[in-house]
């Protein structure tokens, strides 16, 4: 469909945003696009709360002495930061916002398979988030986001039950999202859209859903048991009740290691889309990238013991887990390699989403490689529970997952809102975020290597320089995020009207107007070609490119 054709009808065209305006129409909507937006609002608020705690933590750590807050308060700050960021922001971020919005569009469906369940998942998630906020209002929890027993179940004097109930409830939101995605991908694809014609974003979400379905119930029952142990003293984890706290760690990490891939796999899906679009090439080794998502999801279930090397877990089992952990690096590396090859000889355009994709590749590589260091048992004995681990997971979760989220948000923003954002500002903030991020977290690798433990609010004087650097970086990072929020919100009213396909991308979501009509497509699309079927360009500045340009101008005329 050409951009001009839509332009004529613009004044009368009904889209999913202008079809109804009342608040109620949003609260009872079953439209996957609107539900995606609802999720975006909720998680952005949670990100704000979690971010404030991050800044407070960094503020405290500017000086070696514990002068801003008491150690108890500090414990609560890092716990609430972790709980909110992981359970209420990062896990739902890409799947529930971008996945919800794009997945049905990408497969040419009118909606997900179970629209009402989809809405329910948002309500459930929001209820869980409210419980999380309630635990905050009640004074905050101090167990660490990992809720280790018996501290959480028997000793902590903070509203642990409230917080674990929140995570428990939110978990069902994520189960329902995963269930919906799997059935949708299996059953709702447009005619001709075979598995190997699917965008890699869809493959990534399929793999993510696998973890949501198979992992989340286990953490749900585990958290429920912690709440019961705490509330009724029916315990199976507290040694004082005859239980084994290490069992808690097994059950917790059986989910929570795979959960880190709930955060990163959809991000990898986003990055695949970005790299293909902005290199104007089919992803090199498409099948490998597709299957590596599944491989990561499956392997992620057999490595959890790497969080327990010093917990009293059997040394022999630790060896098994150590070896298995290194295997996860293989499919991850396959992706990085294939993206790099895709860009090679491609026509790389450095629009802001692509900047995020490039940042992702660099930062995720660092995060993954340091993960490999940690998977070596002997090294981990030294680095466990130090700032090295903190830096490692922030490189994958912020440098990887959040950067991918921002890249995807920018990429699909025109589709979601019908407006373009100001590109120069977007480029600037991408740069600010990249610099701020590295300045915040790179010094933490060194601090951890030097032995600075995590979760303490004081430290010896000689580590102050690196800590100040880190805190300075956090300020820059926060400025970067704020900038993004400001111009995105600004663009809602003031941005230029977005054409149907601003990036000249393939993919069904770009063949419907921006923003899409309530039922996505006027006619059911029929797919006849593979994903990312960009015209082949023969030589730089050669005939081929010329032809391509011509074709494009023709389309726009």
């Amino acid at each position, binding site marked *: 469909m050409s951009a001009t054709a839509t332009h004529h009808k613009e004044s009368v065209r009904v889209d999913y945003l202008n079809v109804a305006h009342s608040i109620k129409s949003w609260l009872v909507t079953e439209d996957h696009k609107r539900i995606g937006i609802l999720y975006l609002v909720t998680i952005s608020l949670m990100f704000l709360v979690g971010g404030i705690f991050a800044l407070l933590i960094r503020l405290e750590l500017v000086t070696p002495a514990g002068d801003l807050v008491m150690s108890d308060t500090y414990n609560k700050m890092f716990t609430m930061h972790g709980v909110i960021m992981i359970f209420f922001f990062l896990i739902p971020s890409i799947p529930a916002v971008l996945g919800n919005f794009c997945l049905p569009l990408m497969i040419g469906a009118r909606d997900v398979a179970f629209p009402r369940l989809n809405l329910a998942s948002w309500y459930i998630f929001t209820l869980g988030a409210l419980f999380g906020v309630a635990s905050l209002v009640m004074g905050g929890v101090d167990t660490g986001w990992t809720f280790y027993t018996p501290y959480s179940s028997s000793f902590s004097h903070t509203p642990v039950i409230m917080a674990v109930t929140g995570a428990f409830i939110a978990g069902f939101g994520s189960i329902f999202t995963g269930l919906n995605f799997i059935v949708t991908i299996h059953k709702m694809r447009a005619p001709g859209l075979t598995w190997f014609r699917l965008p890699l974003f869809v493959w990534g979400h399929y793999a993510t859903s696998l973890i949501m379905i198979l992992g989340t119930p*286990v953490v749900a029952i585990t958290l429920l048991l912690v709440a019961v142990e705490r509330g009724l003293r029916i315990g199976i984890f507290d040694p004082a009740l005859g239980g084994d706290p290490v069992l808690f760690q097994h059950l917790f990490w059986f989910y929570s290691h795979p959960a880190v891939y709930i955060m990163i796999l959809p991000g990898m899906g986003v990055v695949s889309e970005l790299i293909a679009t902005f290199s104007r090439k089919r992803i090199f080794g498409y099948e490998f990238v597709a299957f590596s998502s599944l491989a990561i999801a499956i392997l992620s279930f057999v490595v959890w013991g790497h969080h327990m090397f010093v917990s009293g877990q059997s040394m022999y089992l630790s060896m098994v887990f150590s070896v298995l952990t290194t295997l996860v690096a293989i499919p991850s590396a396959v992706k990085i390699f294939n993206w790099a090859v895709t860009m090679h000889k491609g026509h790389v355009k450095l629009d802001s989403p692509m900047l995020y994709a490039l940042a992702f590749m660099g930062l995720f590589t660092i995060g993954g490689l340091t993960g490999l260091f940690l998977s070596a048992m002997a090294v981990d004995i030294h680095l466990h529970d130090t700032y090295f681990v903190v830096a490692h997971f922030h490189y994958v979760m912020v440098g990887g997952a959040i950067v991918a989220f921002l890249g995807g948000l920018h990429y699909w923003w025109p589709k979601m809102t019908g407006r373009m954002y100001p590109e120069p500002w977007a480029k600037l903030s991408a740069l600010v975020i990249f610099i701020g991020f590295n300045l915040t977290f790179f010094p933490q690798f060194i601090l951890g290597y030097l032995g600075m433990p995590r979760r303490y609010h004081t430290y010896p004087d000689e580590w102050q320089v690196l800590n100040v650097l880190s805190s300075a970086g956090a300020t820059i990072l926060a400025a970067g995020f704020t900038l993004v929020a400001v111009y995105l919100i600004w663009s809602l009213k003031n941005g230029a009207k977005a054409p149907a396909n601003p990036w000249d991308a393939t993919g069904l979501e770009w063949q419907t107007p921006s923003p899409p009509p309530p039922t996505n497509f006027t006619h059911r699309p029929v797919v006849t070609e593979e994903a990312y079927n960009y015209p082949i360009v023969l030589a730089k500045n050669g005939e081929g490119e010329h032809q391509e340009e011509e074709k494009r101008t023709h389309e726009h005329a």
Partner: protein
Amino acid sequence: MSTHETDLPVGHQFEDAEQQLDAYSAGMWLFLVTEVLFFGGLFLAYIIYRTRYTEAFVAAHHELDWRLGGLNTLVLITSSLTMALAVRAAVIDRWKQVIGWMACTFVLAGCFMVVKYFEYSAKFEHHLFPGPNFQFHHPGIDSGEAQMFFNLYFAMTGLHGAHVLIGMITMIILAIRLYVMRNQRVDFIPVELAGLYWHFVDLVWIFLFPLFYLVGGN
């Protein structure tokens, strides 16, 4: 595809009734998979403590009456049969039969809960509910280890009981819906899904019964 589904209403997101049926049954199976893993954590805990505290578990299980557990097993199996017949009646479009068979299932589920109630209250009376009042005196057996048996007993049968209750509520809602829509072709999809759920509840009990009532080594 059989002809039965063609005259059912189709949701706007679906192309046809067959796609809709496929999607719903796949969705339900996926849900049951999550249930398997949900209970799975508890089963794992059971295995670990059962092998660790073998003697205490054997001693503690004598406090449970295997006859009541056996009775409940028979009750649940029968209710699975009646539920299967309800689903069958729905597929062949007999709304009165569906309600009839579901009523049987409901009554059997009620019996199960009543038996459970008596079992639970007996445990409370004998100070066998875990917690500060727990008392278990048996020569050579650590009462803390025995308490773990009851921890797991209450956690697992309690969770299972909650599933039975949810099933019973679902059946009431379905029966009302069937009655209200009695002039149309029976919408068998919800009945089928409720059936799958109910069989799963039965399935969990099939494992719980020997694990708690027949620990062995009498």
